[in-house]
């Protein structure tokens, strides 16, 4: 398998406040590959938004601070471009040794020669051209980041009202986004903007080009924002709760649109949400966060069918409206400034044993027979993972039973589905 496009490694993001240091993200790993949708799911305060903002460092610094960790962006073109622009800050793994002798491991920062803070890391060259390498976003300076933000990596946010400037027309704002990352003249940029607006499903795109944001509904504004994000042909789209402020019927439209665009353009999407329903709808891989740590990550089908971590299961079981009994998690989020020892979820976990309360968060163990990793002591040596899975079997049965009721509704829906015009959401 090729390298992921973005890989977040051991990321720590902190905020220094009057009440102490808030460790919002406390050592997490996330990989996103081309053409893949990765969902980070978690409750408020889990650190999911901070993670997404740490990638392009759009968070307020200070009080924000990333003391440890790396965010690798492996887009060869960007690496080449920035290597030319910042020759002093390029670190070439093979520079000093004969080609092919050493491994491709990148030495830690303090072991690298020179005083410069390297952020363009070159791992392989074919001839003179860089063929493999990455940009370390955490160490990249602001002027390098500006090239990447909005260009290679685009963001869309939860609240469409505040993401558009109310004093400019929608068309002007998209044209601006188009011209920021291309040399198009006004006429070409305008055509591209209309094309984009039509692409994201705005009816009468050319006629609405000169409308102001307040003349659009919430769902339409979110479409405009997606159009703006697409203006630069990004490799990665980071979507932070883009449908949370919208009604369900509009949410379904936007999710369809995102899936469709991804299929067309082969982007990587990092999707932040708190809604497991949305995750099931669009994710390829899922990362479950809790109190700044990753509890579990894995392929979407495996994760929903056999959630390995007690927290993931609890999260699924407390969803309202599945027909069965809701099982509430109980307890409350741990302190952000002074988190407990051991597993962050241990104080609320029904299976917690003594080992859960000591040391650090358990490492990510692979789950046997599934594309899944879980941070839970029961998957480690000397423990029986079935302890945390027995109860799940019961829950599974219940879900199956109550699903019966829903399927009836579904069937009624599916009958009409054939007669409904499908919005092209072919997946």
């Amino acid at each position, binding site marked *: 398998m090729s390298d992921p496009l973005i890989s977040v490694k051991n990321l720590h993001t902190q905020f220094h406040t009057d009440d102490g240091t808030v460790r919002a993200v406390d050592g997490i790993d996330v990989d996103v590959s081309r053409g893949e949708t990765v969902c980070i799911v978690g409750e408020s305060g889990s650190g999911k938004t901070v993670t997404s903002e740490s990638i392009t460092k759009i968070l307020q610094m200070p009080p924000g601070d990333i003391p440890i960790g790396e965010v690798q962006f492996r887009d060869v073109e960007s690496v080449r471009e920035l290597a030319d622009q910042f020759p002093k800050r390029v670190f070439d793994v093979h520079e000093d040794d004969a080609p092919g002798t050493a491994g491709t491991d990148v030495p830690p920062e303090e072991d690298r020669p020179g005083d410069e803070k390297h952020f363009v890391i070159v791992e392989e060259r074919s001839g003179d051209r860089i063929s493999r390498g990455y940009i370390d976003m955490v160490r990249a300076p602001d002027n390098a980041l500006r090239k990447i933000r909005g260009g290679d990596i685009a963001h869309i946010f939860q609240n469409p009202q505040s993401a558009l400037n109310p004093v400019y027309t929608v068309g002007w704002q998209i044209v601006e986004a188009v011209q920021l990352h291309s040399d198009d003249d006004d006429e070409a940029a305008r055509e591209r903007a209309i094309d984009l607006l*039509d692409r994201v499903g705005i009816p009468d795109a050319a006629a609405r080009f000169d409308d102001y944001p307040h003349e659009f509904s919430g769902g339409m504004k979110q479409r405009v924002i997606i159009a703006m994000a697409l203006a630069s042909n990004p490799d990665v789209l980071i979507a932070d709760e883009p449908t949370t402020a919208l009604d369900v019927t509009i949410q*379904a*439209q936007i999710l369809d649109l995102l899936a469709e665009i991804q299929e067309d353009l082969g982007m990587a999407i990092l999707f932040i949400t708190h809604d497991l329903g949305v995750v099931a*709808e669009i994710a390829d891989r899922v990362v479950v966060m809790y109190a700044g740590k990753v509890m579990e990550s894995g392929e979407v089908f495996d994760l929903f069918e056999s959630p390995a971590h007690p927290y993931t299961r609890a999260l699924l079981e407390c969803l309202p409206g599945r*027909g069965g009994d809701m099982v509430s998690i109980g307890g409350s989020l741990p302190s952000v400034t002074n988190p407990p020892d051991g597993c962050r979820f241990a104080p609320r976990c029904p299976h917690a044993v003594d080992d859960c309360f000591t040391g650090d968060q358990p490492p990510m163990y692979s789950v046997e027979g599934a594309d899944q990793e879980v941070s839970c002591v029961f998957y480690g040596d000397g423990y029986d993972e079935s302890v945390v899975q027995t109860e799940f079997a019961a829950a599974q049965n219940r879900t199956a039973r109550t699903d019966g009721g*829903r399927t009836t509704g579904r069937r009624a*829906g599916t009958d009409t589905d054939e007669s409904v*015009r499908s919005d092209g*959401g072919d997946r």
Partner: protein
Amino acid sequence: MSARTLLEVKGLKKHYPITQGVLKKEVGRVRAVDGVDFSVSPGETLGIVGESGCGKSTVATSLLRLEEPTAGDVLFEGEDITTYDKAELKRFRRRAQMIFQDPTASFDPRMSIGESVGEPLLIHGISDRNRRREIVKDLLERVGLSADDIDRYPHEFSGGQKQRVALARALVVNPELIVADEPVSALDVSIQADILSLMNDIQAEFDLAMLFISHNLGVIREVCDRVAVMYLGEIVEIAPTEELFSNPQHPYTRALLGSIPQPDPRQRGESITLSGDVPSPSNPPAGCRFHTRCPDVIPPEGYEFEQRHWRSVQDLRQRMRKGPLDLETVRTAHSDAAGDGHVQTAEDGQSVLDDEGLKAGIREEFDIPQRLSDDEAEDVLDRALTAEVSDDHESGRDLLDEEFQTPCEQTAPELRETSAGWEAACLLHDEQRQRVEQPADD
């Protein structure tokens, strides 16, 4: 659940005037709530569900007379509260309490939790501070907080805890009806479950009637006995919860149920996607208000449409009513739809679509197939499109308007009992029933 009705709402309307100019002349009305009827019995929870802007919150505020309703009667234990004077209204407000969406905004930041919860007691005449504190302490414990919390301030509580406090504030005057407006929407899912089960327990213990307003059908399913589905100020279907979920009768209810993303990746892509946005309540569509988005909109007599294509043709027809089509978009965005044959190179070197190409582009824009299955319908559509691309918008529009009328825009359906045993407002059901009642017509 008793058979007695506690609250009965009849023909409730709330319109907001749109005014213009210095003299505040009324130029239109936002019909936020446009004639809704329902009733709630003691111990029963009625859910009101709908998208934002459908008027569900306005129902709550106008039935409690926090806003004066424009028309309609609200009977509380048989008495019409819309005719109450100040003193009677105050007494009524003790018996009907409200819980709000935002647990942070619904508490005065300058008051301790104890003062806030005890405030309704003070307003209704319990002036003994110590007695209020005793009652509040007891109540705080019963909603799962500690009596020591009484002197703490709202900012010291989490959202879920604040919503417990809000429940305590609503309960403290021992009401008979609680109106809860999106009480868990601002909370995390893991907290929602706690609050919902607390509400269920409390309701069972005190035989409370509850009006539960939410946009989230999952939450509604968890707490409600019956559900009313609202669309653009009207109730389109009202049914017992489980029955509604298993056998929705109104196309809108079906679409709403179908749009909820299910936490099961095996079911992805099965959702029903409604086209377009909710129309403005200041100018609701004629006939059935949902007909502009309805996937099951009824085709006219005499044409055989595939339902999906009929919806698309309706979209085109509704669009043409608003004005000439935006051909520039069609030219820029749909130039490849027409096929190479229709692209001509103009004098300035740019490629331009000819009329046939434009027509094909319009069809693509509106998801209409390049050829409809019904020949007569195809003929009408083609003539209309030809007129449209040759700058004769009026005749194209009129042709579509006349030929492709749907009964849904001519007749406003009323809430009628359906074959499923509950009420829905949809012509499809009326039609079905007519067919059953008058088989000779067929």
